[in-house]
Every structure is written in C-alpha cells, then in structure tokens.
C-alpha cells in the first residue's frame, strides 16, 4: 500500500515538459495506440452487435418479437391467404383474440406487437405482401394511443426489429419521408441507405439492454430462458397475450402522456393511406378497429384527445379504409392493467370485433355471413361514445 505520494500538483507529467517542446515526440507510438484503440472500440461494437440478442434483451418483448419474426417467415413461406390479417399494437395483442376469431370460422394471421404503431403496421404489411401473402381483409387494430403517437416509430428495439428483409430500406425511406422530426428524418434516411448495422442504430437500441447485462451478467441466462419461453408461447397462442392480469384497474392508460392539443401526426395519415394503397393494389379491403379504453380513462383524460382520434377515424373512409367503430369504453373491471384488457375484456372486445366485422362483410356482400359466432352489437352499441 505504500507508493510515491503526490504531495503537490505535478505539471511535468502527462505529456508536459519535453513533449510541449517537441510535437513529434512519441508521435509514431501515439498514432499506433489510437489506431489500436479504435480497433478495440470497433471490435467491441462488432462483438456486441453479433452477440445473441436473446441473452441481452429482457423478456417478454424480445421473445414476442422473435415469435413475430418466425410468424412472418412462416407466412411468407406458405404464401398465406388468410381471411383476416390483423396488424396492430399491444392492445390488439391483448384484446383481439386470433384464436377466438379462428374459432369463429375465419382463417386469421395476427401480426400485432407491443409498441408497434400504424407506420410499423404498414411496414410489416408491405413486407408480407411483398413476399406473397395475400389476405382477403386487413384489420388495422389500434388503441387511440397509437393514433396520437408522435413520430414514425417508438424507440423500442422490437419496432426496429420488425423492419427487416429486402423491404427494410424502402420502409426506412418512407419513415424518413413521413416523419416530422428533422433529426429523425435524416437518421431514417441514413439507415435506408446504409442499413441499421452500418449506421449503428442496432447498437444504439441495444445499449440499455447491454448495460443491464454487463451490470448483472446472470441476467443474460434469465433473459434467454424468458425470451425462449415467450417466443414459444406467443407463437403457440397465435399472437394472443395478456399484459396485466389484474381483475380491473382505475389507473390511467398511456394516453395520459398526451396533452389536449395533441394532433394526429402526419406519419399516421401517410401510413394509413399507404395501407389502403396496398389494399387497392393487391385486392384486399382494409378496416380500422379501435380498441377500447376504460371508463375511468374516458372520464378523466382530456376529451380533446378522443375528439382528435374521432376526427382521424372520420378521415379514413376517404382513404379507402372502413372504420368499424368509434372511441368506446369497457368497464374498469375489464382491464388487466391501465392500457390492456384482461380475459373478460378480451372476450368482449373480440365479440364486438367479430360482430362488427361480420356486419360489415354482410353489408358488402362478403363471406362474413359464413361466420359461426356472430354476436349481437346491441350490448356494445350502448357502450360506445361519440356515436
């Protein structure tokens, strides 16, 4: 423990003294050091980028995203032709049950994922259509939070993970075109040209998870186990999953982050119009289904938020998208957490969806009349607001 004590400030150290007089002293070694330092930095970044993300990201989101990717691959390989293809967010994951819809006699492929907004939904649909998937109808199933959500993508790794394959560059180019933030426009443009690996976006998104694992290495093992279990379970459930499992809640959902003057961002309009365009090009109809909020949320959140969502809903028809419903509520008891429904809520939502979808199909002369499990709209009609 003994060593030379620095009793006073030493100015001659650290490249002072002689080094100041000669700019060349140590220059060759210094350049080599900086080069190898850069090498170490780049090599570390490469190793981190190539490391199995299953061990790095915490469950359940990453496991769900992996299952989602498996599902995309399988649908593409099968060149699936479902009656219904559902794109949506976490509220659709919890609320619109693919299993129950299948039981009602429809063939269905649900591509909903937490944090995935309308833009991401378009990108996934674009990718699926590109690989040969041909649905008869596409359902855009979103909570009002993703109508209001600013920006093309929420900054979640899973969102960026969805933008893969040969259409990824096209998706990022569109994100750049439709995004409001100048910085993000530039970033998306760069990614569209150079890809997520070279631009380092993957690494940036990996940062918090990587930090967590470096801080708590045993978490890597539990991450892997959790993600694998989630991946298997999410695939097996056809994309149905509950988030909170409470028997009701009166807390406010994610919409609480928004202010009354919140507007629908341009990207959501552009992405919705692009989804409608895909429908026209590839011969499928597109419907929009809004997931419910709790009665407490409806009562306590600024009414302007829901008015904005309603105004957006009314714009959809002109784009060629048929809205199935308006802003509506379910009792607090039907929510497992502030934003997502529980089993009781799911039953209500899925029944409502099936009934509305079938009614819409009937009115358009579609095949919905073949569905076995039609549900009366009467109950839900009474709970709707804005109608």
């Amino acid at each position: 423990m003994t060593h030379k004590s620095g009793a006073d400030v030493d100015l001659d150290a650290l490249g002072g003294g002689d080094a100041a007089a000669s700019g060349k002293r140590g220059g060759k070694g210094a350049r080599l050091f900086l080069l190898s330092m850069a090498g170490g930095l780049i090599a570390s970044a490469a190793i981190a980028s190539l490391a199995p993300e299953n061990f790095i990201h915490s469950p359940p989101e990453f496991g769900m995203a992996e299952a989602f990717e498996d599902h995309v691959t399988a649908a593409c390989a099968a060149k699936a032709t479902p009656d219904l293809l559902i794109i949506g967010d976490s509220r659709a994951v919890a609320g619109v049950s693919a299993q129950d819809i299948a039981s009602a006699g429809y063939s269905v492929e649900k591509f909903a994922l937490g944090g995935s907004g309308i833009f991401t939904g378009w990108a996934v649909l674009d990718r699926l259509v590109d690989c040969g998937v041909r649905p008869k109808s596409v359902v855009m199933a979103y909570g009002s939070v993703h109508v209001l959500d600013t920006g093309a993508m929420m900054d979640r790794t899973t969102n960026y993970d969805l933008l893969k394959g040969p259409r990824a560059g096209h998706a990022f180019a569109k994100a750049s075109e439709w995004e409001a933030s100048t910085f993000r426009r530039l970033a998306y443009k760069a990614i569209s040209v150079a890809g997520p690996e070279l631009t380092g976006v993957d690494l940036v998104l990996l940062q918090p998870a990587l930090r967590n694992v470096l801080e708590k290495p045993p978490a890597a093992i539990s991450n892997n186990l959790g993600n694998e279990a989630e991946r298997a379970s999410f695939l097996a459930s056809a994309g149905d999953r509950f988030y909170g499992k409470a028997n009701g809640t009166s807390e406010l959902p994610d919409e609480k982050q928004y202010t009354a003057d919140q507007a629908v961002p341009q990207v959501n309009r552009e992405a919705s119009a692009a989804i409608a365009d895909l429908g026209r090009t590839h011969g499928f109809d597109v419907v929009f289904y809004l997931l419910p909020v709790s009665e407490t949320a409806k009562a306590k959140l600024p009414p302007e938020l829901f008015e904005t969502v309603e105004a957006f809903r009314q714009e959809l028809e002109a784009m060629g998208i048929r809205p199935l419903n308006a802003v509506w509520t379910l009792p607090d008891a039907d929510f497992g957490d502030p934003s997502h429904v529980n089993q009781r809520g799911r039953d209500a939502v899925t029944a409502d969806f099936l009934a509305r979808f079938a009614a819409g199909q009937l009115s358009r002369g579609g095949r919905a009349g073949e569905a076995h499990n039609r549900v009366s709209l009467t109950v839900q009609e009474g709970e709707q607001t804005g109608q």
Partner: protein
Amino acid sequence: MLFHTHLFIFGFLPVALAAFFIAAKVNKRLPVFVLIAASLIFYAYWMPEVTLLLLGSIVFNYLAGLFLQSDRPKATRRLAVIAAIAIDLGLLAWFKYANFFTETLHALTGFGPGPLDIILPIGISFYTFTQIAYLVDSYKGEVKEKSFSSYVLFVTFFPHLIAGPVLHHKEMMPQFADPNTYRFNWLRITLGALLFAIGLWKKVVFADTMAPWANDAFNAADAGMIPELYTAWGGSLAYTLQIYFDFSGYSDMAVGLGLMFGIVLPINFDSPYRSLSIVDFWRRWHMTLSRFLRDYLYIPLGGNRNGDVSRYRNLFLTMLLGGLWHGASWLFVVWGALHGIYLIIAHLWGQAGLSLQRFVGKTAAPFAGWAITMFAVIIAWVFFRATTIGGAGDMLGGMAGMNGADPAVLMNFLADPRLWGVGSPIIVMLAAVLLPNSMWMVRQAERFLTDNKRAAILGGGLLTGVATFVGLIFIGAQNEFLYFQF
C-alpha cells in the same frame, strides 16, 4: 453539458478539437478565441442566462486585477483587494448561501424570509476561488501574464470550468502564451484520450453503479427509516466509493480534455484511499482545493507561524470553511470540522512522538494506519452524503450496531446479480485500494509511447478501446457529477 454524454463525446468535443487545430493553422492567437467560444457554449448549454454572470465576474476581476497590479500606493491596493474579494464572496454568498443563512436564521429565531428562489450558477465556487487567487497574486505583484484573452480562457476553459481542478493562473497563463500549446501533438492527444477513457469508466461504470447502493441506504435513513448494521455499512461504503470515482473520474476527464487541447491541468487525486494517515489523505484528495485552502486561507490566517494553538485553530478553521465551501448545509460544516479534528489529532499524535509501530508492530502498522484513516474518512462521508442530521445520526447508529444486524440483508447482497457485473462493489473497492491510479497508468503509457514499445502500445490501445466501448454503453444513467453542486 456533461462530459459523459454522447452529445459531448460525439458532437461537441470533435467539433471543438477540429476548430481549435484549424484555427491554430490560421493564426497564433485564434485558438484562444476558439477555446473561449467553445467554453462559453459549453457553459451556456446548461443555462444561458448565468453565462452573463460568469462574464461579468470575469470582467470585474480582470479590471480589479489590473488595478491591483498598478503602481498605486500599497494601502490603496490593500483596500481594493479586500473590496474586490468581498464582492466576489458576496456574490458567492448570495447565490450559494443566502438560503442557508435565511433558513438558519428562521430556525433559530422564527423570523426572516422563507426560502428564496435563487438558482445556483453551476461552477460558481470554482470560478470564484480561481479569481480570488488571481486578485491576491495581483496584489502581491506575482502576476506576469496580463493578456485579457488569456485571462478569460484561464477562467472559462471548459474542462475545468464547472467542477475544477481549481486552477492557479501561474500554471495556466504561461501555457496560453506559449505557441507550442497550439501545435498539434499526437502524444498529448493520445494521452488525453486515454485519460478521458479512464475517467469515463470511473464515472459511468464505477461511480454510477455505486450510486443506487448508496442512495437506497441514505435516502431511507433521511426519510426516517432506521438502518441496521449491514445496510448502514453497505450504504456508507458505497458512497465512499461513489464520491471518489465520481470526482476523480471527472477530474481525469478534465485533465484528459485539457491535454487534448495542449493544456496541462493539475492533478487532483493521487489514490486517496491508499492513504496511511489523515494527513496523507489530504495530500491526495482534491489536491488543487487543498492547495488553494493552504495558500489562500491557512497561510493568510497565520499558518503555523504563531505556535501550536494558533496552528491548530487555523487548521480547524481552514477545514471548517473548506467544508462550507462544498455546500450550504450544516452537514458540510460538520464534515469539515471532523476533518479539522482528525488533522489536529494526527499532528498532536506526531508531536507526542507516538507511532502505530509501537502498538501493533512494524508489519501491521501500515495496515492499521490505513484502516484507521479509512474508518475516519468513511464516518465523515456519512455527514457529507446525508441530507438531514437525523439521517446521518441513524446511519452512524446503524454502523455502530445500535439498530441490530439482519443477516437477510447480507444474504440479499450476496445473491444480488450486480455482484458479478463490471461495476461490482467488490471490483470497485479493490480498484480503489489496490489498482494503480490513472496518473500512473498515463505515465506508463507515455513511457511506452515515447519508447515505441509496440506490444504494450497495441495491447494498451486495444484494452482502452474495449474499456471505452463499455464506458459508452454505460452512459445513460441520470446521475450528474456530485461535485457540480459544490
């Protein structure tokens, strides 16, 4: 702006460096103005309006300095230096201590205004002290370099502006006047980058991972929860490590940044947790502040010139005021007083001819000295970290075992996954006590670079690159530098 942000590392720093060296090619003095501009942008990024206060303080002190350097009668200059220092201290007192005084007055008498709405301008303690030293030396006739631009840069130079090291004009102004400073120098750039990387690691990997351990214990104690033995010791040890790596990491980054711009800043830490006595500790901890307090407080108070009683009084007062300098709280005063008492005891011990060797033997003496010193330092840190006297008392009570010992706390600690991480408390503790310090590492690197030892250079560079990557990954915690508040 903070050093440990991606904006600083990937945005501000490269742009500032490029502008600095391009300016150096254009004109000899231009880099000074580039650095001043960069420093003001760096400072204003936090709160533009307080930049005016900084600039006002600089102009005032520079003009006061010119007056003090003039041929006017000594009595006039003496009056002027007292007035100028009083104005500086008055400004500091208003921004930093006004609430402390009014709250104390209110607590004692029940009268006086409530809390005042005053924003503490970041770095005010540092730039006030720096300039007071300049005034005193101007009065003594010890100022040689009088260029205004050099003076502005001396005060504002962004690596030291907001949390030190506390600079002395004598070590800075000649560097600003030297054309060699602005010459591109691979060695300095490299050593600066190495030191910055080490500092970044110390701050984000070591200090920031210690913070939650310390915060949990101290916040609970301050909120009235009584900590038991393991919680109290765990929290105190975590804070002991956090504050060292936080501040020494910041200082390393500051010195490293200075070096990249060709400026050699003074060293601030020299492995203080390896000190074998409290006197030794104060030679190694926040060395530039200790130097300032010695030269501009302890010695003017009389130093050791008037006998032992006066010497100990001066020592105690210096440490007391040094404590108060850290913040407007009685807890900082207690911290300073404790260190004053420690130093007096240490000096009395030495004067009495006592030695630890006599009590524990030659081999054990250094370990005993280290253990006693660390124990004293840790006890004092409790007052430094706690936000209430009650919280500090409860922590000390817990450390003394007065609140019992819960083995479950220890078991939880041993089962905590963070124990296996790169910022594990065990690794951090061993690094503080056993590893060579950053200055030693940089000096070794300098030797290898100048001797062109290729294997060492390649290995060292690679390791630094990996460490920098980990440091960059760890950026993101919301912890500011602890010393910003001082």
